């Protein structure tokens, strides 16, 4: 898929685990896992907003486009 989710990178920078992120954002671990592994078909803006607020970053830090 051309859109890459760089959640791992941001989590490492903020020294946060996936479990902590799921608790703070309010998404289940399974959903976060789907997002992290690139299986997600769509992301709601409010979810993206919550993740960016918790990780203190921009959407562009998490989402990356790579042409195939």
């Amino acid at each position, binding site marked *: 898929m051309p859109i890459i989710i760089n959640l791992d990178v941001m989590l490492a920078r903020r020294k946060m685990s996936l479990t902590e992120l799921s608790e703070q954002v309010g998404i289940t671990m399974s959903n976060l896992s789907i997002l992290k592994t690139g*299986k997600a*078909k*769509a*992301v709601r803006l409010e979810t993206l907003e919550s993740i960016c607020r918790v990780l203190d970053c921009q959407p562009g830090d998490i989402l990356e486009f790579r042409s195939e």
Partner: protein
Amino acid sequence: MQNQVILCQNPTEFEKRKGLNNINMNTKNQIKLIKVIYIVILLSGLIISTFGDGIEGFKKGMEDANNGVSLSFNLLSFLQGILLIIILFLSLRVFLYLYRFMDAVERGEVFSVENIERLTTMGWYCVMLSFGTFLFNCLELTRFTLSAIMNVGFEFWLLVLGITLLTIAFVFKKGIELKQENDLTI
């Protein structure tokens, strides 16, 4: 679902969930009732046709034997026999798939790949049955003229049923795609 402990801060939320559980129970009971009615109709139809037509056929055979009617090989009758077996087989398969479909819906599996396969198979079987029964009726003709064939009854309702089932299968397939898309929306 029935043993689930529900923690609700809001009393109206509890009432809403209780209401939803009641609706689910009502739907399950309705499906159970439909299944029972289906089995009763199927069994009664089977018993009536077995005892009714079966005994009549046996009596006719006995009469022919007593009257000294010689049995000669008739290709058309043989083909009719083969066709009858195929029609019976396909009909039984349709009934079985329908029962399994209702069973799956009762268990909560509505939009599943197996249900789509069942609906598609039932649809194609019904289409084949409509042409199969037409062919069976045509084989009973004494003269194979165009006007005689045109007068043979065609089970349009079976064809329409088959096409409807195929359409429903397509709708279910789209439903699964939408569900997957929704499930994979974070």
